[in-house]
């Protein structure tokens, strides 16, 4: 099913508030069998991050080297295109993390 553009619009203020914030990787995995809209990105790592303000977040890790896949790795929240949309869909941008 398509993601509603209204839903994207409603979420964007939460997304914007997180861009640039930093934290540390708590746990990581590599997804090798993805859901449909993520198939062209697999395999990709997903991390649970403890942000510097103590809040926990979850997201894809991007621009990484193998040695970045460790608990304690410092990361920063960045805005990225999320997944592959259908031709009629709004393009979906969301938070991912990159090692710093």
């Amino acid at each position: 099913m398509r993601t509603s553009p209204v839903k994207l619009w409603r979420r964007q203020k939460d997304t914007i508030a997180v861009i640039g914030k930093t934290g540390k990787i708590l746990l990581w995995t590599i997804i090798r069998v993805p859901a449909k809209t993520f198939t062209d990105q697999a395999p990709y790592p997903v991390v649970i991050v403890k942000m510097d303000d103590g809040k926990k977040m979850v997201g894809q890790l991007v621009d990484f080297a193998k040695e970045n896949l460790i608990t304690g790795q410092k990361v920063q929240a960045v805005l990225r295109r999320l997944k592959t949309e259908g031709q009629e869909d709004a393009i979906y941008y969301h938070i991912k993390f990159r090692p710093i």
Partner: protein
Amino acid sequence: MRIGILSEARAVRGPERSRGRMYSMKINILGTATTKFGELWDISPRELAREAMSGALRASGLRPSQIDALFVGNMLSGILGNQTNLASLIVEELGAQVPAFRIEGACASGGLALHNAINSLNAGKYKTVLVLGLEKMTDHSQDEITSALSAAGSDEERMSGLTFPGIYALMAKAYMQAYNVSEETLAAVSVKNHYHGSFNPKAQFQSIITVGDVMRSPKVADPLKLLDCSPVSDGASAVVITSDILIKSKNPVTIIASEVATDTLGLYTRKSFTSLSAVVTACQKAYQAAKIKPTDIDVAEIHDCFSISEAIAVEDLGFSKKGEGAKDIADGKTTLFKGKIICNPSGGLKACGHPVGATGIKQIVEITEQLRGTAGRRQVKGAKIGLTHNVGGSGAVAAIHILKGSAI
């Protein structure tokens, strides 16, 4: 009927007053049935439902007209089957146009359906009801199934590209790091469950596997490999339960506790990644209601959607000490013919199969057979008390049932 709408002032008093009250359950299981679990391409959801329901009715010695209501546990009929009035569809197959309800709670849909059915009996609304768990999954491709199952997760987890195996993979990482457990030790869970499945003619997989087989299977989400994961399955299971003391059963099995608890939808915000608080809460309430200790359990059906799930479950249920669950399973402490509390004699989700909505009811079917002494080659000798552990999502909801036999 006297049902009031509580004003604010009375709402404060209400829950406190009712907290200490303990209902005494007297609900008998009259009959059970389950279809074969597996890739049943030639069998439709209707046919699966019909087979399970007519089997359970036959086993109870009841006619459809003696059933007061139908409860259907199902997760995916809306998303995969494009059917969101499932209970009305299924009741056509029952042969009596009774009130029918579809209950959904991800992989715990079956357990939740039973819990709701029991509540309706305890409330005195119905006396004899049929509970069906049903799922048809293999009509669809792997990425469609992966997407549909991830609908049980939180938005944030889905947007991060996490899959259901991915969420449990994160738990496995946390568990392995915290307790210094190897992938090989976790693999022993699947090995044990395939061994049990080899004695179950209804199981999707009846083949024995080794730790090496698990280790060599392709990775799904590190550190979980294909053989750490339960399969995609079709199947249906049904039970007929009653509160009517006039209906006699030759070999009665009684449900002595039925508890449900919830936790946050997503895993990532939780305090602990190595324990499911919904399971801990529900089982503690259930033990209290049944007035038993974890060690009184002889046989349990565990929700092993992944190998890590069973390791964490035996700890949360109080069968193993914290951090020792995987090791205990690997040491055979829950294995048929040698363990003390036998876990997943059916083969569990891993080997028996996991048609998600059916699983919670299949667990009841298995424990009922075990307590009646009719489980054949996989019989747990002298089993008197059994437990079912049914979990939805990544532990967002858990349903625990405790059953007592009278055969011995």
